[in-house]
């Protein structure tokens, strides 16, 4: 097995545990503790994928979550995961990965031709090229998406399990490097409940990749000791492999824990794959470190051009020396740490430093080890097609704006960029904290947070780069955060001593000069170059947010973690103003990509949304009901017999109910029990009609209005006693009406003594309807069903099918109907008894569709279908329900508002199409005027629309067969009965229909009362 770039020893990998994996179908070896990236680099793989726009060959830039280039398709089939950063994938045995954004293969990519046309693909090319004609945009977009496509989504359902977990803590610490661990230590010692989370598989942060010392010992010893002490604290929770991804108001943070990703697909056992944490923290400590930034020089995107800190991580943490000849390109001292570690590991090392004459401690150490240093020098070009093979360097002029003299060529297989550091202020910014530009350090650092999100930034994310100071800051923040959460007195222990090196200042050089037109990338994933930013400026994009969208800078899966500040620097120079004046783009959650599966957690399928079912549900299911969702309820929609279409079933149910007896499960209707001495007074305010004279055991229909005078619910309310009422509401409006009652009682009429209780689920309701309903019911009840004893709109109590029941004689079908209410537990028994006894009456179970048809025949509205929040009772022809005598009820005053009395209102009408077989689509518009050949640009106004429309067997057309009926709202409709209107359909047909009053069946209502 050739891991020719693996060092003989060193690194935090377990060489006793070799692993094998495949990349683009080829087998490789690695070790436990590797990432996919470190293992590929150990095997000499440099070319990983292709860039987004130009399809240029790309390799590894970083060793962490900031990686823009090395995004791969991980695994296959249902387990496949697109756009995965190879630098954060922990290697496991059998791992399969593949390049993405290349076709047919990463080595031979057809899209690379884009590179040849690069000058035709400038910034904003989407907007400039694909503007017109609009119809072609769809075509273009599809082509662009294909060419620019990132990974491929899985086509199968996700086989993994995920969960959401909610928790509270006193101190949440984001980041497990030296600053975070120090804070956890002192916060934990106070007894506060502490959570410390870090995205890596082990704590230590940058110390995992360094040779730093703390108290004279290797820094990792301090890490081990700290973790050992934290392990003894019962209130401290350590979460490795957990990225704090979002920082929301009132210190509510989200974190994504990758629980079993590192074991490989299907190897997680019973565990969830990922856990999505929702954490409410009294105090937050941000210890998120810093991200190194690249240098924007000519041809800086070839595979093998990496971040200097990443090279160091591969050497020290993974025991991999990424190249044999390494050229470090630096504008600050930190690049020399890489040079020193690389030359010690056996590489030939050069440094090109843009600073005039660097002489810091690290520079001298490197020089003493034999590193060749080119001072005041810039890289002006690179060589190598699929991997870098060399660089060209030139001397800089005095102010660093140009290069002068002749150029040298340096052979190298790695270029390590050390362009300075960006504190990872993402979470702080998400918390709405304000940033400050530190000109000397050339970095944005936290300035001040907001009161509702108390946090402290410590260590590198606060711009504190020296290890000793980092530890002191962490220790101090830990105790102070604990104190502010109510633990301890806030006094910090003395900080341990740590490695100190004297560093010289960074030399900011946002764009490195060169001769000629060469691409200088500042944003690798989206192929955004310094020239793109400059073009954007020339074309008037001054706002950073505009430039971002114009150039797509920072819009990739890495969200511009490496590119952000360099981009601002180039924009600032182009706009001739300072970086603070350009400003920053907004950092948004999540910090790193998170799978929808994790966010969804356990809320899938039946747990996604509750299904409310009635006690009669088992019968419906076993008799083939087709269900529809009404609110959260599953209601039988229709009951098809074998071979029947929906149309067939509904026509049969409609006819059977009118001719014999139908039965419907009405349990879902909202029911509210209202008691108390002021109940009547409440009803008088809620409803438009008068209630005082309603006798005990009598029912009355009412509509409820909002204060705008518009209908928002309806239902029948029954007086059970002097101060006791049973209110029903629409199925979907039950909770809304309950809330309405509570709101008025609590906020406006707190002195009313009324108690409202939702009893929707206490009662199961079977409604039997039709000319044979009374005969059926009389067989199984002791209640006298005679019309004089139980008249229409009456209620009585008794026994039905051997169980106590309330029987209401109310009807939504226009037939003699009984709503039989029994305690919920008896619902199925009631239904089954009715079905068994009903057999000889040809009883027909029907669903909501038939209910809709039958009530439409009678012109009974469905609130929310025939009304839409702009309908008064008068608009729907219910003048009769509005009391003229009552001084006040909710909405009354609005009837006389100018807009409501100016006329020309949409009013409920019936429609009968000229062709009785055409069922108008619900929602179809009624044209005010029609012109068979309207001129272009001439539009006809809608005069209304169809609200309900059905085919029914109960209304016959000229041919003696069933016909269509519709309800509609039409301008001035009540005075237009007899007119013919036109309904233009989407398919071009113009359907003529007769306007009628909104009732089609038994207009006198004789059947109902019988």
């Amino acid at each position, binding site marked *: 097995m050739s891991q020719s770039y693996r060092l003989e020893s060193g690194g935090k990998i377990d060489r006793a545990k070799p692993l094998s994996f495949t990349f683009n179908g080829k087998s490789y070896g690695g070790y436990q503790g590797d990432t996919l990236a470190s293992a590929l680099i150990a095997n000499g793989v440099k070319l990983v994928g292709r860039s987004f726009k130009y399809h240029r060959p790309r390799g590894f830039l970083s060793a962490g979550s900031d990686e823009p280039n090395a995004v791969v398709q991980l695994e296959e089939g249902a387990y496949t995961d697109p756009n995965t950063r190879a630098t954060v994938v922990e290697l496991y045995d059998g791992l399969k990965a593949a390049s993405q954004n290349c076709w047919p293969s990463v080595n031979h990519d057809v899209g690379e031709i884009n590179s040849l046309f690069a000058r035709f693909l400038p910034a904003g090319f989407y907007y400039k090229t694909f503007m017109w004609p609009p119809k072609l945009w769809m075509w273009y977009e599809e082509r662009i998406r294909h060419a620019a496509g990132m990974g491929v989504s899985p086509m199968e359902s996700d086989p993994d399990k995920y969960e959401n977990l909610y928790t509270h803590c006193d101190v949440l610490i984001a980041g497990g490097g030296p600053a975070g661990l120090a804070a956890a230590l002192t916060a934990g010692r106070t007894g506060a409940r502490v959570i410390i989370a870090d995205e890596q598989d082990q704590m230590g942060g940058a110390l995992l990749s360094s040779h730093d010392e703390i108290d004279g010992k290797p820094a990792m010893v301090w890490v081990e000791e700290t973790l050992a002490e934290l392990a003894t604290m019962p209130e401290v929770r350590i979460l490795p492999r957990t990225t704090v991804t979002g920082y*929301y*108001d*009132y210190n*509510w943070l989200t974190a994504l824990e990758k629980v079993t990703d590192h074991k490989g697909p299907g190897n997680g056992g019973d565990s969830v794959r990922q856990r999505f944490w929702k954490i*409410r923290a009294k105090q937050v400590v941000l210890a998120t470190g810093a991200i190194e930034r690249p240098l924007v020089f000519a041809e800086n995107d070839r595979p093998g051009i990496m971040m200097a800190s990443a090279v160091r991580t591969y050497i020290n943490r993974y025991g991999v020396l990424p190249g044999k000849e390494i050229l470090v390109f630096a504008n600050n001292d930190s690049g020399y740490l890489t040079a020193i570690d690389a030359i010690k590991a056996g590489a030939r090392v050069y440094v090109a430093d843009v600073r005039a004459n660097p002489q810091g401690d690290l520079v001298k150490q490197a020089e003493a080890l034999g590193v060749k240093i080119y001072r005041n020098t810039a890289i002006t070009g690179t060589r190598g097609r699929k991997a870098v093979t060399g660089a060209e360097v030139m001397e800089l002029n005095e102010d660093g704006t140009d290069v002068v003299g002749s150029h040298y060529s340096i052979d190298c297989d790695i270029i390590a960029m050390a362009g300075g550091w960006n504190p990872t202020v993402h979470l702080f910014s998400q918390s709405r904290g304000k940033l400050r530009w530190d000109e000397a350090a050339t970095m944005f650092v936290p300035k001040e947070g*907001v*009161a*509702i999100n108390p946090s402290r930034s410590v260590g590198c994310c606060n711009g504190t780069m020296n290890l000793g100071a980092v530890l002191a800051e962490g220790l101090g923040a830990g105790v102070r955060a604990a104190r502010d959460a109510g633990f301890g007195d806030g006094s910090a222990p003395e900080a341990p001593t740590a490695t100190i090196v004297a560093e010289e200042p960074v030399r900011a050089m946002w764009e490195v000069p060169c001769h000629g037109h060469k691409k200088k990338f500042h944003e690798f994933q989206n192929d955004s170059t310094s020239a793109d930013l400059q073009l954007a400026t020339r074309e008037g994009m001054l706002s950073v947010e505009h430039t971002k969208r114009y150039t797509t800078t920072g819009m990739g899966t890495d969200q511009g973690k490496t590119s952000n500040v360099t981009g601002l620097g180039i924009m600032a120079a182009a706009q001739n103003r300072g970086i603070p004046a350009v400003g920053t783009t907004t950092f948004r959650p999540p910090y790193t990509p998170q799978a929808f599966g994790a966010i969804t957690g356990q809320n899938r399928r039946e747990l996604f949304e509750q299904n409310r079912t009635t006690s009669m549900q088992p019968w419906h299911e076993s008799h083939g009901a087709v269900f529809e969702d009404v609110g959260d309820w599953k209601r039988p929609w229709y009951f098809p017999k074998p071979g029947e279409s929906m149309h067939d079933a509904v026509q049969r149910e409609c006819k059977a109910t009118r001719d014999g007896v139908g039965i419907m499960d009405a349990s879902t209707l909202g029911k509210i029990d209202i008691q108390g001495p002021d109940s009547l007074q409440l009803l008088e305010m809620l409803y438009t009609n008068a209630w005082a004279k309603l006798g005990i055991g009598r029912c009355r229909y009412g509509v409820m209005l909002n*204060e*705008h005078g518009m209908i928002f619910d309806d239902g029948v309310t029954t007086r059970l006693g002097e101060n006791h009422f049973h209110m029903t509401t629409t199925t979907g409006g039950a909770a809304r009406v309950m*809330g309405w009652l*509570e*709101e008025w009682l*609590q*906020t*406006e009429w*707190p002195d009313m003594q009324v108690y409202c209780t939702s009893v929707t689920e206490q009662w199961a309701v079977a409604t039997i309807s039709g000319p044979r309903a009374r005969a059926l019911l009389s067989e199984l009840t002791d209640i006298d069903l005679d019309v004089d004893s139980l008249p229409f709109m009456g209620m009585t109590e008794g026994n039905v099918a051997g169980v106590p029941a309330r029987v209401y004689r109310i009807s939504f079908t226009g037939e003699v109907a009984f709503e039989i209410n029994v305690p919920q537990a008896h619902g199925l028994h009631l239904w089954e008894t009715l079905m068994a006894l009903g057999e000889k009456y040809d009883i027909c179970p029907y669903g909501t569709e038939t209910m809709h048809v039958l009530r439409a025949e009678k012109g009974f509205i469905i609130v929310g279908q025939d009304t839409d929040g702009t309908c008064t009772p008068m608009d729907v022809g219910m003048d009769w329900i509005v009391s003229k005598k009552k*001084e*006040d009820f909710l909405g*009354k*005053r*609005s009837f*006389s*508002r*100018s807009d409501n009395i100016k006329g020309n209102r949409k009013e409920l009408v019936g429609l009968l199409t000229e062709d009785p077989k055409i069922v108008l689509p619900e929602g179809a518009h009624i044209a005010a005027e029609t012109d068979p050949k309207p001129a272009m640009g001439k539009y006809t106004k809608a005069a209304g629309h169809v609200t309900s429309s059905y085919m029914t067997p109960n209304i016959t057309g000229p041919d003696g067969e069933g016909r269509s009926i519709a309800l509609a709202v039409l301008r001035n409709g009540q005075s237009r009965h007899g007119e013919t209107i036109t309904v233009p359909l989407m398919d071009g047909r113009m359907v003529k229909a007769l306007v009628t009053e909104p009732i089609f069946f038994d207009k006198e209502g004789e059947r109902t009362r019988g």
Partner: protein
Amino acid sequence: MLTIKCPWCGDRDLTEFAAGGEGHIARPLEPATQSDAEWGDYIYTRKNTKGIHYERWMHAQGCRRWFNAVRDTVSDEFLAFYKTGEPAPKVEGDGS
């Protein structure tokens, strides 16, 4: 996500609550005597405050009680919570 302190139940997540808009808008005692403009104000006109806002909340997934809060709509900081019927507390920075 906001933390809201129900005067009856204590600190709870925003997701347990329903927002009820601007507070201290009393229903006119005699609607019939209201002019169109006055009635229109009652049902439609709201301050849409940038800054200190007196508003109503209901603990929908909890005790289902309505109560009032004072919130800075810029910072989203809650400055006070109080029960329905209690007078509005005066808070610092209230320009109304």
